[in-house]
């Protein structure tokens, strides 16, 4: 009975954080690339826009997302194409919300890494017949690896702990939108502190392992000065 209650949220959390991280990288990388390289006047406004969801309290942001995903919002329109009344209270809705909420944390380090890379490696790639697309994959992405890892780790961690947004747009529905953080929240609300401690402790240990492993594995060895 306990295991039954504990495992679905864990599975759901990992699924959500994993898929969200994938989307964060898919969306955040081109966005960071554009921000790092454009000379458009829109650059800083767009950067600010990406960071904006941050300043809203998660429940409030969640509330607006709820409106956007709900039957009267664009999300509802999309959902109706699939025969659903609303994107809220669904797993895809959670992913959308998490991505919006964690995007700035993914974009920032990636942008920084692209900027630090500079123009020269891309120019070198071009003179070696690499098209911009080829150079992006073969030079920019590996060159910005540590930024991508940092962005993914922050995005993943933030999604795991994210709470207000998910509670609001997910509705705490067991098996569909009830992720671990909400499950822990429920225990807190029930004053079942013991269980909350155990779950939190497990979450911490697990996350610590995942994060420090990722960081150690992928961070490049210190470049020796030469």
């Amino acid at each position, binding site marked *: 009975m306990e295991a039954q209650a504990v495992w679905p949220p864990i599975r759901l959390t990992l699924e959500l954080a994993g898929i969200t991280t994938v989307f964060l990288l898919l969306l955040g990388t081109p966005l960071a690339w554009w921000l790092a390289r454009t000379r458009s006047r829109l650059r800083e406004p767009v950067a600010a826009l990406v960071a904006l969801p941050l300043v809203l309290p998660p429940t409030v942001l969640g509330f607006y997302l709820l409106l956007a995903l709900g039957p009267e919002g664009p999300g509802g329109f999309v959902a109706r194409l699939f025969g659903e009344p609303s994107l809220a209270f669904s797993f895809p809705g959670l992913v959308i919300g998490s991505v919006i909420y964690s995007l700035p944390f993914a974009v920032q380090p990636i942008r920084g890494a692209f900027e630090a890379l500079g123009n*020269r*490696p891309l*120019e*070198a*790639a*071009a*003179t*070696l*017949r*690499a*098209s*911009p697309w*080829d*150079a992006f994959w*073969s*030079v920019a992405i*590996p*060159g910005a*690896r540590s930024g991508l890892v940092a962005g993914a780790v922050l995005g993943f961690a933030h999604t795991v702990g994210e709470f207000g947004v998910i509670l609001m747009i997910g509705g705490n529905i067991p098996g569909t939108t009830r992720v671990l953080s909400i499950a822990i929240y429920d225990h807190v609300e029930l004053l079942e502190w013991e269980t909350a401690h155990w779950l939190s402790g497990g979450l911490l240990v697990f996350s610590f392992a995942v994060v420090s492993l990722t960081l150690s594995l992928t961070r*490049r060895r210190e*470049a*020796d*000065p*030469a």
Partner: protein
Amino acid sequence: MSASAGPEPGLSADLRGAVGSFRIEAGLEAPAGRVTSVFGPSGAGKTTLLRAVAGLTRLDGRVSAFGEVWQDADGAFVPPHRRGVGFCFQEPALFSHLTVAENLAYARRRAPERPGAPVSAAVVERLELAPLLDRTPAGLSGGERQRAALGRALLSNPGVLLLDEPLSGVHLGARGRILDWLRGLARDLGLVVLQVSHDLGEVIRFAHRIALISDGRITAIGPAGTILAGEGIRAPRFEASVVLVARILDTADAAGLSTLDLDGQRLRVAGMGGQPGRPVRLRVRARDVALATTRPEGLSIRNVLDGVIRELRDQPGTPFIEVVVAVGGAGSRNLLLARITRAAATELELAPGRPVHVLLKSVCLEDP
């Protein structure tokens, strides 16, 4: 010099524009199979010119290579990665996330096949990269990085090779060997090589043609001999030199000396290989040439040519004059330049039309 006479169609650029506050307006022709050196002071615009040819900096004007238009006034612009240029940046730009071997492979994988182009093994051998292959660029010395970057550029099989001081950090011996090999490659594959160098020795040794650039403008361009004998290279005056074309009569004998024919006169030079009958280029620096009015006796200088003074060029502000001497009879293009003190010229009563003996230390003759 290859058997096929005359420059083949190569690169032609006519560019104008500005980078920051620096204005450039430079036209340039660089034939295929030849090395064209771009020579000029720091800040003259050499790097800018090379970058514009590669399409990395966009200037106005026209660039074409091998009959293909890379950019023109109508707005045509072939992006850098479709120009097939190899570029050695002034500060080597190896990919720091890849080992040397992977850097080379990066180029090789994207290169088209080209019969006769150097394969990886040859490049690694010539540039002495074997011990470096598994290292990342951060663990290389300055010269090692330059060699690796040159190797990478070569392995992309470019039609136009743009070298921005490619070997400034490589020691003399290796540099000479590498440059000779590059010259051979340029000739055999019909590459356009455009090379920037501050090292006059390197330019003299390496360049078929020289373009002098200063303040964003090409002030002179032409065959190395003409430019080196001309007024263009002012600064290191004492390095003035000419290039002569002679023919091999006899390759190195037991003493290690070869005999050459220079418009009917004999020269003995150290260790030259090659087919008898083949033309060779000799570089003679003005400072290595002495003149005598009577044929000298008992002298260690073995090469004495007969010539006629064409012109005396005063070098104001110095105690020197340069004497232009024709050594191959009236019609010959073989002119020699002698740098002597004005006092000596006066004492020997040198004047145009006067026959003189030209003394060349044999050691000064080398295949450039």
